[in-house]
Structures are given as C-alpha cells and as structure tokens.
C-alpha cells in the first residue's frame, strides 16, 4: 500500500503552473465564459460541491470528451433549455441510463473509427449510480467499455428534495428517513460502491472529494489514461440537503475525509493503493456537528450512542485502509 498526504487547500499545496498549449482551465488565464468546457450561469445552489466537482472533472478531461449524464441536480441545473453550461458534446437521456448511453456512444465511435483520442465519461449523482442505475453501470463495467463513470455522491436524492439513497450515511436524517420518536434517521450504512465496481475486475476504481480538487483532477487524468472501464466516486457535500452553510462545503468535505468517514483511495486492478492519510484523525463529532442532518444525534436521547457507532464506522475504515499508520 502506497500513501500520499492530503495536498488539499493548504497555502503551500500548489502554485499555478504555466499552461502548456491551449488554455483549458481558469487557472491558466482568463477564458471567456462562452468558451469554457463548463460555463457559468448554471442554476446550481450557491456553494454546490457537485457542480464544482463536475467542472473540475471536465476541465481535467479536456475538450476531446463526450459526456452522458443521468438525470439529477447536475443535469437540471446545467441544461435549462435552450441554455447549456457544457462546452463538450453532452447528452442526457434518463435518470438511470447514462452508463448504457455512453456504451452506445463508444460503440458508435468504434464503428466510425473515431474512438481514438476521445474520452467518454458517464456520470450521475449517487441516486442514479448506487440505486436506480446500478444494473446499467454493472453492465457497462462487465462489458469492458473504455468509459470513465463518475459518481457525484451528495448522499441523498437532492434533486427531488433530500430523500434517502443507498449512499445516505448511517443515521443521517433525510425527508424519507427522518429522525423521529422511533428513529435516528437512515438506519443503514452507505453502499460500498467503489468496492462493488472493483469487484467487476475493472482496472481502476477510486474515491475523491470536491474538497481535494487537485487530487480529483489527477485521478480523472489517470483514469482516462487507462483503457477499459473506470470508476470514480466523488464526495460532494450539499449545503442544501445537508442543512449546512454554503461557505462550509469544502470544510465539511475535508472533515469527511479526515475523520475517516469518506476515505480517499484507489483500487488498481483489485489492490488498494494511494490511500490519503490525514495528518491527524479528528473525532467524527467534529464532522457531524457541521450539518443539521445529524442535529438529532446531539439533541435526542441515545444520540451519543449513535455517534459512537458512527465513530466505529470511521475507525473500521481507518483500520481497513491504514489511515492511522504513518
């Protein structure tokens, strides 16, 4: 197991590098909005990490990319007809079928002899990925298409109003798994999607977070350099659905990683690699207190016990991935 340290939003983490060739990102100089791969004017919430991550992904992937997008916040907010935020060929069909649509795009490019040099990305939120679209993603992985699937995980059905998904964390309160007299919210842990994908025998399955933009972009480039099906699971805090401050999106995302609740790692050909190890691992309570979806854990009798259980989830992740080892 190799390791990296969080590069993250620290002052000395990076300095802008001179762009090679045509400017592709905002960092590399001013690009007029209408010439961007992901243009402003989208209708995402202030502080939305999903749209942030989506911009980082396409800017890393570059202009020779075709995207198939599931229904969800990302689709609705970026393509209010007749406007689009996308500067690459982009298609939305349905809630659950981006992986299959992308499979068809790949087949069409191969049939035309035009696949070489073109990246294909299928993407969607956690609901369309771990729940309703899972079978189609599994089919895409099993068939071996040269496609990167990106899941933007904001841990509930945000587009429809914060209903639970298979990626909602243990004891988060959502509108369909509310806390109440008899409940601490969603009583099931997150579906282990990166592992499910890796179990298909694909060459690359990884996690990333919008809070670590440069790690995320590095992984997009790495994934796209590998032939075959790839999976990238990106944690994207949702200030609206997590009942948190817009300005705190990145801080919350960082805490998820540092506490061990959303560990960052890669699975290359079935082997866990490049685990991001926090300098110190704060207690999960630091993370939970930033969001009102966990508020009941601190106001309801028995909440402390649940917090311990959540700490155990983080500790288990830490043990599994060696987060605490130096």
């Amino acid at each position, binding site marked *: 197991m190799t390791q990296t340290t969080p590069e993250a939003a620290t002052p000395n983490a990076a300095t802008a590098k001179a762009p090679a060739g045509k400017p592709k990102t905002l960092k590399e100089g001013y690009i007029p909005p209408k010439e961007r791969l992901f243009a402003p004017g989208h209708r995402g919430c202030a502080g939305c990490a999903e749209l942030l991550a989506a911009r980082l992904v396409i800017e890393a992937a570059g202009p020779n990319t*075709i995207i198939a997008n599931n229904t969800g916040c990302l689709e609705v907010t970026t393509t209010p007809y007749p406007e689009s935020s996308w500067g690459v060929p982009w298609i939305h069909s349905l809630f659950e*079928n981006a992986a299959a649509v992308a499979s*068809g795009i790949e087949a*069409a490019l191969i049939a035309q002899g035009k696949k070489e040099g073109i990246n294909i990305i299928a993407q969607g939120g956690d609901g369309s990925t771990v729940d309703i679209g899972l079978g189609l993603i599994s089919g895409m992985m099993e068939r071996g298409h040269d496609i990167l699937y990106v899941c933007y995980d904001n841990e509930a059905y945000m587009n429809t109003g914060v209903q639970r998904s298979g990626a909602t964390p243990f004891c988060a309160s959502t509108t369909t798994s509310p806390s109440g007299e008899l409940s601490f919210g969603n009583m099931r842990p997150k579906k282990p999607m990166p592992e499910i994908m890796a179990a298909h025998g694909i060459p690359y399955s990884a996690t990333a977070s919008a809070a670590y933009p440069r790690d995320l972009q590095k992984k997009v480039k790495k994934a796209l350099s590998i032939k075959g099906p790839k999976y990238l699971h990106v944690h994207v805090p949702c200030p609206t659905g997590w009942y948190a401050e817009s300005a705190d999106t990145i801080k919350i995302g960082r805490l998820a990683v540092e506490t061990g609740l959303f560990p960052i790692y890669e699975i290359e050909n079935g082997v866990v690699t490049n685990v991001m190890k926090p300098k110190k691992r704060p207690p999960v309570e630091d993370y939970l207190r930033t969001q009102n979806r966990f508020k009941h854990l601190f106001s309801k009798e028995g909440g402390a016990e649940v917090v311990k259980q959540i700490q155990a989830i983080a500790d288990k992740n830490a043990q599994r991935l060696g987060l605490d080892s130096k």
Partner: protein
Amino acid sequence: MMPRKTVVEGSMAVAEAVRLCRPQVISAYPITPQTHIVEDLSKMVADGELRCEFVNTESEFAAASVVLGASAAGVRTYTATTSQGLFLMFEVLYNIAGSRLPINLTCANRAVSAPINIWNDQQDSVSLRDAGWLQLYCEDAQEIHDFQPIAFKVAEDPRVRLPIMTMMDGFVLTHTYEPVELMDQELVDSYLPAYKPVVKLDVAHPLTFGAFAQPNTYHEIRYMLNRAVMGAKPKIAAAFKEFNETFGRDYAPFMEEYRSEDADVLVLSLGSVCGTIKDAVDELRTEGQKVGLVKLRMHRPLPKAELRKALDRASVVAVVEKDISMGQEGIIATDVKSAFAGHDGPTVLSYVAGLGGRDVPVPDVKKVFKEAAAWKGRQAPDDPIWLGLNTGIIPEVQ
C-alpha cells in the same frame, strides 16, 4: 450466400434485411420470441458478414439506451424486442422519440403479463402508439424483410428524424419458414444511402442533447414531435413508392385493400392474421357474399383520410385486433371510429381476438363476417365483442 429466392425463417428474413441495411451499432437483449433475430445477427457479426458493433446488454432497458447513445453519436442503429422487453424499454422509447433519433426496432409481437404468456398478440406494440414512434405492421416474412430498408430510409430522412418500429407476429412469423425473395445488396445500397445525421455528439461541434425543457418550451417541442409524426406520412408514401420501383414490389403504403372495393361488410385488421382473413374472404366470396379486408399497415401516424376512403362504402366494419384498452375496447377500433367522427360512416364493431396466442382460424373469421352483417344500420355496442370466448370456464362475477 443464400439464394435470393428461398425458404427462410421469418426471423432470418428480418435479420438478413437488417444486415443488408448496414447498421453500425446493434444492441439487444434476448427475449422469446425475438431471440432468433438477434441470434442470426450475432452470427452474421461473428462470421464477418455484418461489420457492426453488436452490444449484448444486461436488459432491454440498457439495449434501448445503448442504441440511443449510438444514434446520438451519429450512426445507423437497430434493436429488436417484444412484450415485457418492450415494456421495460418503455421509458427509453419515449425518450428516443422525443430526442428525434432514427432508431429502427423490430417488435416480435407477444402478449404481456400477467398472466405470463409467450405467444402472439399485439398488446405490446399497440400500447406504445402514443410515444412518437412510427409503426408499421407486417403480414408475412416478405413484408418484414422488405420493410427494413423502408424503415431506415423514412426514419433517417432529415425532414422526419423519428424512430420507427416494424411489427411481426411472434412465433407465427418469427418461427415460421416460408418463401421469401431476399433483396440484393446493390439495390439496397442504391435505395438506402449511408446515414447522414443532422446533429450528432461530436467534439468538433459540442452540442448539448437532452436539455431540461421548462413550461415555456416543452409544449412547443411536443407540438413539433407530433408535427413530425404527422408529417412523416407523405415521406412514408414516397419511401414505399421508391421501394416498389427499385425492387419490383407493389406495396400500398398505409393499408392494403383486399376485395374491398364493392364490399358491404369489411374486416379491418393488422398483422399475420390478415392472411387467414384473406382466405376467409375468398371462401365467402365464392358463396356470393360481398365481403373484404382492409389490412392496416401503418398505425402511426394514423392515416385517417385514407381509412375513411377505404371503409366509407361498407355498411359495417368489424375491427379484429389482438389487443384491448382495458375499460374501453380494441385500440384500433377506437382509432377507426375517430376517423369517422363527425362524418357519416359504417357501423364500426370492436372485436378482440387471438389474445395470448389463441388461434384465429378461417371458420372464426367467417363467423365474424356473418355476425357483423347483422349490425348493418345499427349503433355498435359500447362493449367490445370477444371472439371465441370460452364462457364455460369463466366464473360468475363475485
């Protein structure tokens, strides 16, 4: 290579025609009785007779999505399914039509669950009439063979840009061997040029497909879809005409009229049962009865004016169909009645027949003609008439 005039299975007749049309991406999921079509196509790909990407998917939902993506990326696409498979595709099929993608689908008509039943009726495709797909029904293997290039040609016409499905009765046509005159590759190539999409997913011009339409545009976009379906009618007529000229056939584009010119009692039907009905018509004609058949070929768009013209002279029209709108009547019967709304016309009877593979033999068809004659000048009943219903096994209403 197969001789050009040969006895082949109906599934092979369609597969061979699809091969001749040079699709670039095929995706499908096997389901009885569509299986032989996709098996034949898979073998053609495996043998190098068909240069095409064949994507085997984990479900019909995925197969429809794969051809959607491929079509949006600018290539000629084909899929085939039936019954539950078509229903599993339902959401995607509406999406394909709304996206104006010229996908060609063969539906091997089969009954729908429950109860589960693998045999033929047409409830599956008729249930999809509202989606924006053009729909053509076939009587025999020759038609399903010939209609493939016509389907691609119409669908891909830049003024049409619509998906199309051709229907063949499951088992009755898919699994039956009969003589077919296979088309010649050179003629197919001359009739059906390579597909040139108007728009496609292309990094050189990165368009956004499938944007989120709000109330200020959705209404108009759906208007345009309906306008396109309606507007496809002359294009379909032209495609049939050119086909007839190229291949020496004699297809009427919207419906085939059989001994109907002076008929007092007509049956209107669609699909393979029309062959049996023609035999019944001949027998009744030799008995001196003025009966005939109108075989509806194109269900969407509905050729209302042509229906009026074809049916107008009869006193009674019995619509014999293998489907029903529960709580209403046969779906085609309602459509036929709509063609006469506000016009004087014949008495239109709705016959529900042959569900789930129930055979419709000549004597049953003759019975329909005889019963129908008795409705001359009378108001048709509100409820559909069930042909060959075995009332002895139906319990009383509880």
